[in-house]
C-alpha cells in the first residue's frame, strides 16, 4: 500500500506542476460545462459535483492573486531546540482518556522503553506531526490547492484553495492528515482541517503520548516571513475527547533549496532489518 501511495503522491505533484504550468501559459478551453463553475473548460463535471482542483476550468477561474507562494521544500527549524518537532510542552489539560496514555508513556520512558510507537510500525504520522518530521515537506501551490508531500513516507496532504466547503460528515473519508480547506486573510493563509482518523494517531510521542481523535480540529495560520526564507505556522488545535480548550503552538520552517524529497516507503521488510522496532523495548 505504501508504494502505491508513494506513486500517487509523486503523480499528484507532477500533475499539479503541469496544471500550474498550463494555467500560466495556456488559454482556457471553450466552455461546455454547466454553470459558472465550469465556464471556460471542457469536459464539465456533473452538475453538483465539485470540480477537481486540477480541472483546468477550476484553475482558470478568476481569483485574487495570493499574497505568497508556498511552492518549495520546507523543514522544521531546529535552531533553538532539537525538540522543535514537538507541539508541547506546554500541553493542555488532558482528559482522563488521554492522561492514561500520557502516564503510560512517561512510565515507559523512565524504564527505557518505547510506548506505542505507531509511526515506527509504519502507521502514518498524520497531522500535526507529519509537518515536523525530520524530512522536508515539499509543497506545490496552484490557484486551487496546495499539494504537500512529505519526504517522510511520501505522506500526501492537500489544502484546497478553491472555495469548496468541508465534505459532509457522513461521506468524508477519514485520514491521518485530514481534510484541509485554506482561505486567505490578508497576508495569512488560514487552513482549517478536520476529518481525521482517530486510531494509531498521536499528537506527541516519546514519553508524552497524547492521542488524536476523530474530533481533532486544527487551524493553521500560515505566514511567509524573512523574505520568503521561512514559514511561520501558528497551530490552534482542539479535540474535546483528549484535552480541554485550545492547544496552541507556533512553528517555523526553513526553505530547503539544496535537496528534493525522494520515494520513501514503509515496506514489509523494513522493520525486519531495524531490530529496534521489534525489540523488547517496544510497549504496545
Amino acid at each position, binding site marked *: 500500500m505504501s508504494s502505491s501511495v508513494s506513486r500517487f503522491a509523486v503523480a499528484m505533484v507532477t500533475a499539479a506542476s503541469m496544471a500550474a504550468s498550463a494555467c500560466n501559459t495556456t488559454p482556457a478551453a471553450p466552455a461546455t460545462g454547466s454553470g459558472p463553475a465550469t465556464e471556460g473548460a471542457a469536459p464539465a463535471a456533473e452538475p453538483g459535483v465539485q470540480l477537481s482542483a486540477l480541472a483546468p476550468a477550476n484553475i482558470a477561474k478568476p481569483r485574487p492573486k495570493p499574497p505568497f507562494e508556498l511552492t518549495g*521544500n*520546507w*523543514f522544521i*527549524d*531546529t*535552531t*533553538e*531546540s*532539537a525538540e522543535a*518537532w514537538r507541539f508541547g510542552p506546554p500541553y493542555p489539560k488532558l482528559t482522563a482518556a488521554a492522561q492514561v496514555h500520557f502516564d503510560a508513556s512517561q512510565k515507559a*520512558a523512565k524504564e*527505557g*522503553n*518505547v510506548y506505542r*510507537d505507531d*509511526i*515506527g510500525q509504519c502507521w502514518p504520522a498524520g497531522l500535526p506531526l507529519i509537518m515536523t*518530521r*525530520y*524530512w*522536508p515537506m515539499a509543497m506545490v501551490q496552484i490557484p486551487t490547492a496546495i499539494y504537500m508531500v512529505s*519526504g*517522510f*513516507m511520501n505522506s500526501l496532504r492537500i489544502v484546497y484553495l478553491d472555495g469548496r466547503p468541508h465534505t459532509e460528515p457522513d461521506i468524508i473519508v477519514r485520514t491521518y492528515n485530514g481534510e484541509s480547506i485554506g482561505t486567505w486573510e490578508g497576508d495569512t493563509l488560514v487552513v482549517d482541517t478536520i476529518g481525521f482518523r482517530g486510531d494509531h494517531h498521536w499528537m506527541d*510521542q*516519546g*514519553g508524552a503520548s497524547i492521542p488524536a481523535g476523530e474530533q481533532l480540529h486544527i487551524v493553521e495560520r500560515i505566514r511567509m516571513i524573512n523574505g520568503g526564507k521561512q514559514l511561520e505556522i501558528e497551530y490552534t488545535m482542539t479535540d474535546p475527547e483528549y484535552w480541554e480548550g485550545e492547544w496552541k503552538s507556533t512553528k517555523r520552517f*526553513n*526553505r*530547503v*533549496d*539544496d*535537496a528534493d524529497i*525522494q*520515494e*520513501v*516507503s*514503509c515496506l514489509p521488510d*523494513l522493520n525486519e*532489518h*531495524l*531490530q*529496534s*522496532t521489534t*525489540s*523488547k*523495548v*517496544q510497549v504496545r
Partner: protein
Amino acid sequence: MRKALLGCMLVVMLAGIAPLLAHHSPAAFDRTKEVTLKGTVKDFRWQNPHTWIEVNVPDEKGKVVLWGVELTSPTYLIRAGWKSNTIKPGDQVTVIVNPVRTGEPAGIFRKLILADGRELTERPARLGTPNAK
C-alpha cells in the same frame, strides 16, 4: 573491561548526538553507551527511510552473532561521503553503535571504520537550518 562479546567493546560515552527521528523512536537506544563491532558485512541496504547494515560478529566463544545497525537515510549519508558501494557483503569492517537498551544485538550507527582505515560518520538529519540543534 571484560568483554561480553569478542570484538565488542562497551564504552561509556558522555556526549549525546542529535536524535534520529524519522521512521521510529530513537528512545530504544542507549545513547550513553557505545559498542564496537568488528566483523564481516552480511548485507548493506541503501534505501529510504533508513539505510541498514547487518554485520556478523564473532563472540568470545567463536559463535557468530548477527548485529543489525540502523542508519539515517541516503540523503544525509551522501552528504557525509557515503555511496551505495561504500561497503558490500564480505567486507571486514568496524562499526561503532549505540546499542538498544535490552542487550539485543542491534544498535544505531555512530561510526564506520573500513579495512583501509577510512572512517565514515553520518550527518544529523537536518536540512535548511545551518545552526540546527
